């Protein structure tokens, strides 16, 4: 169970390999990664500035992870989230969950993503041809929390 907030990119293959290294009790390993898209609302995006709240970010992510561990029988989990200036095609963040069976691994990964989207203090500003534009929170993201 680990949380990292960092400016640098990450290697999802290496992270998944580390989660299962030296053990043979994991049956299912799920990963999600979020990537910067090159267009938004029909406009080209030159880059995305990810601002966060140092201190609270780590606490919020660890709290979300602790909830997931309480609800599902997870054997390992990881949240890595970047901040700073990112470009189209780059990785923004990842979550990974390991469990004996696939149901728990999938549910926990989706739960982590839904909570992280609306409860971890990150804000995205896209560089568009018209200047910087803060990404609005989507109602569907808030709605997604209700299913848990």
């Amino acid at each position, binding site marked *: 169970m680990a949380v990292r907030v960092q400016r640098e990119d990450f290697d999802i293959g290496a992270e998944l390999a580390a989660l299962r290294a030296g053990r043979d009790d994991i049956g299912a390993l799920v990963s999600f990664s*979020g990537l910067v898209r090159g267009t938004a609302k029909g406009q080209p995006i030159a880059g995305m500035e*990810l*601002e*966060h*709240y140092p*201190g*609270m970010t780590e*606490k*919020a992510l660890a709290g979300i992870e602790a909830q997931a561990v309480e609800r599902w029988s997870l054997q390992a989990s990881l949240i890595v*989230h970047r901040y700073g200036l990112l470009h189209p095609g780059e990785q*923004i*963040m990842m979550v990974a969950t390991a469990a004996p069976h696939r149901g728990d691994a999938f549910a926990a990964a989706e739960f982590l*993503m839904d909570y*992280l*989207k*609306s*409860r*971890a*203090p*990150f*804000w*995205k*500003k896209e560089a568009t041809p018209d200047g910087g534009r*803060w*990404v*609005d*929170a989507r109602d569907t993201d*808030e709605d997604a929390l209700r299913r848990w």
Partner: protein
Amino acid sequence: MDVLYFAWVRERIGLPKERIDTDAATVAELVEELKAREERYAVAFADMSAIRVALDQELSPLDAPLKGVREVAFFPPMTGG
């Protein structure tokens, strides 16, 4: 106490952090005090439904008491992931 601003709240108020001495009993009272103080606060806090609050790094409601709080943060709805 320390008051922090993020994203467009930070941009509208014009700084990321300041020290504020206040007798406000709740977050809502602090917001009213700041709005009365200067136009930039009134602009940033015009629509409080678009503002989220953290007290000592925990998400908190607008009517939460400020007693004992060392760090207040104001920011828009979060958009991580």
